[in-house]
């Protein structure tokens, strides 16, 4: 759902190699490369994306955020994660190794507290980067907690989408790589299809309807 690119050619190269159908781009590179990405041979939906850090003080900014961009909200603490779950609009909550402790279904129940549909966007690339860089104990713990969080979210029918951004292309995860990682974490074929196909389409539909 979100990848970082340095040039417009990189986007076209990525699209030609991967079986991606929905691709999120940073809003700056999206506006810069709008002309060239429309020339892509494949049927791909390009989304302008932005990562917004949210604290308790800045929670009001969430409701007035630009509708032309699909934001991913990154809670700074548990209070802001709770506030995000309660806001009366659909929102995408970014799940990274830093926000993992705040996006805990035991603490913040996105399904029960939420009045509208909420989505968790798993930044799988960040987790892999953390796994490769962190100590064995930290890496294993965060991967275990990640799979627990995804499992709980799927059981509660909270939308889970995945993004493979690590650094600038080519240091990113392709759709097949994300599928392999989810498979190694023990998710079934049905669950992987939900994460990679069904929930992103639902998120796109909700965003286009402006809910």
């Amino acid at each position, binding site marked *: 759902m979100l990848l970082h690119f340095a040039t417009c050619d990189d986007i076209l190269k990525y699209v030609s190699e991967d079986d991606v159908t929905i691709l999120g781009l940073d809003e700056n590179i999206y506006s810069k490369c709008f002309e060239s990405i429309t020339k892509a041979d494949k049927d791909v939906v390009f989304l302008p994306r932005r990562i917004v850090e949210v604290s308790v003080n800045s929670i009001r900014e969430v409701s007035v955020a630009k509708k032309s961009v699909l934001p991913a909200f990154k809670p700074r603490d548990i209070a802001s994660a709770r506030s995000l779950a309660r806001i009366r609009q659909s929102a995408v909550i970014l799940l990274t190794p830093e926000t993992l402790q705040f996006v805990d279904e035991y603490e913040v129940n996105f399904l029960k507290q939420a009045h509208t549909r909420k989505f968790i966007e798993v930044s799988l690339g960040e987790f892999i980067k953390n796994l490769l860089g962190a100590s064995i104990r930290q890496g294993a713990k965060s991967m275990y907690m990640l799979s627990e969080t995804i499992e709980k979210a799927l059981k509660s029918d909270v939308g889970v989408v995945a993004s493979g951004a690590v650094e600038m292309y080519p240091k990113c995860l392709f759709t097949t790589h994300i599928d392999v990682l989810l498979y*190694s974490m023990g998710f079934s074929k049905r669950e992987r299809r939900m994460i990679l196909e069904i929930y992103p389409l639902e998120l796109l539909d909700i965003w286009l309807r402006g809910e």
Partner: protein
Amino acid sequence: MLISLASLAIALPIRRELGALIDELAPALLVRRKSKRVKRYILVKVVCNDKANIVQFIKEFEKRLLRLVGELEKLECDVTVASISRASNRMIVRVRGDYRCFKRALVALSIQHIVFGDCIAIPIRTSGLISRLRKLLY
């Protein structure tokens, strides 16, 4: 007659003890499953940037995977390149080991470009038979 009676007297308790021992250990022996060593093949597409040397990448590919899979894992997990097609930039990777080894090899293959950079390996299909993947290699 006496000798046979004496031998029976010794053998019967031993047999009883042996029977009890088998009863105790049999469920444990039945539950214990030795992990099956299998061969799986992965069809991989290689995507390199303009500066990267694909030949060098293929040469180093096995070493990279084994480094990511882990030093001790090499005891039970063997990853080798079975076949290469330079025309289509595809190759078949053979994984010998238990099912856990296969999973780890797949993950290692998927994240190797994040560690080493240059070329990306995209797994396209997996199979237990190399002949099935050979059709898709060229």
